[in-house]
């Protein structure tokens, strides 16, 4: 937090104005959304490993969550199926594993549902480009029964 921001915050606190919830907050005490990228630079004998804070690529395309309490997926009101790979790929890492709840920010129910949907999409071979580095990528080169097309029924997902 910069010196100027600290000062302005103190001014607001001193004036003792009740800030209504309807007024949009324009001062943020926390850092804006950013992600770290680990960069490794090899220069002869020297290896420099640095964590660069970069602007999130998703920021301009983020869907606004206007409801104060609902999780982003509940608020969107979407009925996600296992074939909706454009949505499901937002919840996984580059090796294809599901991100934990503290990172996705979903509610219990949606987190469990999305993780089953991700498994279904991966078993169907719909996201072959997001996989571990040793993966064969092409679903048709899988072993035995796994190489044939399969689909799933979303009603088989158990939900509490």
């Amino acid at each position, binding site marked *: 937090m910069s010196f100027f921001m600290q000062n302005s915050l103190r001014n607001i606190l001193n004036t003792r104005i009740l800030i209504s919830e309807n007024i949009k907050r324009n001062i943020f005490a*926390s*850092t*804006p*959304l*950013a*992600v*770290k*990228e*680990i960069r490794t630079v090899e220069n002869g004998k020297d290896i420099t490993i640095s*964590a660069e804070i*970069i602007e*999130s*690529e*998703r*920021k301009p*395309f*983020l*869907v606004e969550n206007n409801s104060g309490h609902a999780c*982003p*997926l509940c608020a*969107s009101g*979407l009925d996600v199926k296992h*074939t909706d*790979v*454009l*949505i499901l*790929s*937002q*919840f996984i*890492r*580059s*090796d294809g594993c599901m991100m934990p709840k*503290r*990172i*996705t*920010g*979903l509610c219990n129910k949606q987190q469990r549902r999305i993780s089953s949907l991700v498994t279904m999409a991966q078993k*169907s*071979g*719909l*996201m*072959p*480009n*997001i996989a571990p580095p040793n993966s064969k990528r092409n679903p048709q080169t899988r072993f*035995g*029964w796994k190489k*044939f*097309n*399969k*689909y*799933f*029924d979303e009603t*088989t997902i158990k939900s509490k």
Partner: protein
Amino acid sequence: MSTIKRVQQWATFARIWHIYDAAWQNPFESAKLLRKYLMGMHKPIYHPLNDCGDHVIVINSKDIALPGDEWKKRVYFHHTGYPGGASWTLAWELHTKDPTLVLKKAVYNSMKGNLQRRYTMERLHIFPDSNIPENIMKNVSNQLQQLRPKPTRLDSYDEKYVKEFPKIIDYPKDYILR
């Protein structure tokens, strides 16, 4: 008789050739659809003794899809007639041997076991891929609609389209990209 009615009458009394793309379709759901056209049950003149069935060409039968783990759960039984001649083949093993057999058996078993069944099956032409002989393809005048939409793989989308697709969540402030 109006022109439309006249054409409808030709279509009813002629043998129409339909084409059906089996890619990502359940063979057992598709069999119910194909049976209707093979037996001519979609025609107003249908009668079990009336030989009014159409031809159906099925393409891409190697790309059929089964739900869940049915590829390794579904079993095909065969008995040679000799003692110890029983054999059980899993659906994925049968499909590896001949990519048209699962669909063919699905259509065959969806029909009643009467004398007409073998003749009706003669009008079903299954091809594992989309390479059809020219003399068969030239007969086709209708395409049957697929029962379930074909899913799109993530790598078939344009990279820019995936990047600019509306995002539901963003990473936390100190998330390390990997």
